[in-house]
């Protein structure tokens, strides 16, 4: 497989062109915004919990940016659907990166993790907890709020 096919492989392009979970969520239970100041990618994430106040019932995102950030965020919405907030707040970056399944340079890694970092912040904000050490570094590079 050529470098090209690896990076913009079919599934990435599909998520980029037909993003899942794209849109707003009025009255979300958790939400946050993230930006990658290096390239201007922006994403806002909205989460609605189920009746248990724990299960992720619905997750939506809006934003603009490169194919990697948009596709990764779209894939993320599928990945976390139905899981618990606690579980997702602790989700490892590798789980998402495996799903994305393309080689990423340090610059592009930040694009790929923009959505997940923002989602984590949304969940931690909703729970009143703070981002774990491992993600705080990422939050320094990305503008999360």
């Amino acid at each position, binding site marked *: 497989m*050529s*470098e*090209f096919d690896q*990076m*913009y492989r079919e599934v990435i*392009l599909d998520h*980029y062109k037909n993003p899942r979970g794209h849109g707003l969520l009025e009255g979300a239970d958790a939400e946050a915004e993230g930006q990658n100041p*290096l*390239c*201007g*990618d922006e994403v806002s994430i909205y989460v609605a919990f189920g009746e248990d106040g724990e299960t992720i019932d619905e997750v939506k995102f809006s934003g*603009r*940016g*490169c*194919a*990697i950030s948009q596709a990764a965020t779209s894939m993320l919405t599928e990945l976390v659907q139905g899981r618990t907030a606690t579980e997702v707040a602790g989700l490892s970056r590798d789980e998402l990166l495996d799903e994305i399944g393309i080689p990423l340079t340090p610059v*592009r890694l930040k*694009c790929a993790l923009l959505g997940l970092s923002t989602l984590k912040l949304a969940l931690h904000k909703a729970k009143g907890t703070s981002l774990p050490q491992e993600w705080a570094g990422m939050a320094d590079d990305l503008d999360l709020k």
Partner: protein
Amino acid sequence: MAVTTETQRLDAHKLRADFPVFEELINGRPVAFLDSAASAQKPRQVLDRMREFYEHEYANVHRGVYKLAERATAGYELARETAAAFVNAPSPRELIFTRSATEGLNLVAYAWGLDNLGPGDVVVASELDHHSNFVPWQYVAKRTGAEFRVIPTDAQGELHLDVLDEIDRAGNVKIVANNLVSNSLGTINPAEQLSAWAHERGAIMVVDAAQAAPHRAIDVQALGCDFLAFSSHKLCGPSGIGALWGKRELLEQMSPFNLGGHMIRQVTVEETTWGQLPYKFEAGTMPIAEAVGFAAAIDYVNGIGLDAIERHEHELVAYALDRLGDIPGLIGYGPPADRRAGIVSFNLEGIHPHDVSQILDMDNVAIRGGHHCTQPLMRRLGVAATNRASFYLYTIPDEIDRLVEGLHKVRKVLG
């Protein structure tokens, strides 16, 4: 018999042999390096000279009387003469080595600005300026209570000089800062005109020549400015060094910027007096080998001829604009070819510049996507970022063809 004064042409194919970076092939092809506006590649001549200097002439400069120190001092001071002559400075004493163009601009902002600005004063930059010639002025204005005003641009990225009248009414104009060539759009700005306007008001004119110096002959006396900053790394020299030229009277009146070894005359616990120009502004150990490499780069560029380089880039821009015009959905920015330097900036409708440069990179075509350190300009253009291809003396039309091919592919994949 008529004398024809045709500009010398350069042979980019031949010059490429001087640049080791083109020897590395990926899938049988060298990099199509179209990001020289960010930083240029280095010819063997520069690398050889630096190595020779480190191997046979290196020591700390000044004061030492032994042979290595003498050779190092001679190399460093010859570099100063070379850099001063390159911008037609009246004297090498007016040529201060800095880390970069950015540091040169900060030097003026701090060392002139902190002492000479206050409430009621106005500092002027433009929407077209690089952050390095924008943020220092904004910052020093804020620190001193002066006002910061910005000359806007039109949709093509040319300055709206008619706004100057209004700026004039805002207070005492003390500093006018502008880039000679825009790094985002290639616009060539009217520095002489701005200098004259500044001087009529008793203001100083600061020219950011970071993007101009590699590409066209610079003459500080003809420009009529008071300060001019440029960088080595953009004109085939090493990173880590740049130069600031300043008018002697101003440099002499000014406070120093960085303080420390070598820039002093006498240090006592009570008081310190400053050394002579240019040392007053060169505190501590300077980029010594880098100065020598910078001079080697200037020699290299001079050997080719700045007129030849300018003409070469002009031809490349015309060719590129022509070929890019064929790509559907391509939005170009910047003035017409005859009013710009070797830079083309564009977007592909609906496609993020990062994806464009990533896909181009897969075919080893290197361009830059981003705001190019000109966020105010991006805001004016209504975009977050653009793609930018920029050319230099080693650029060949084949690289532009590869860019165009690549852009077609980008559109096919992501369009």
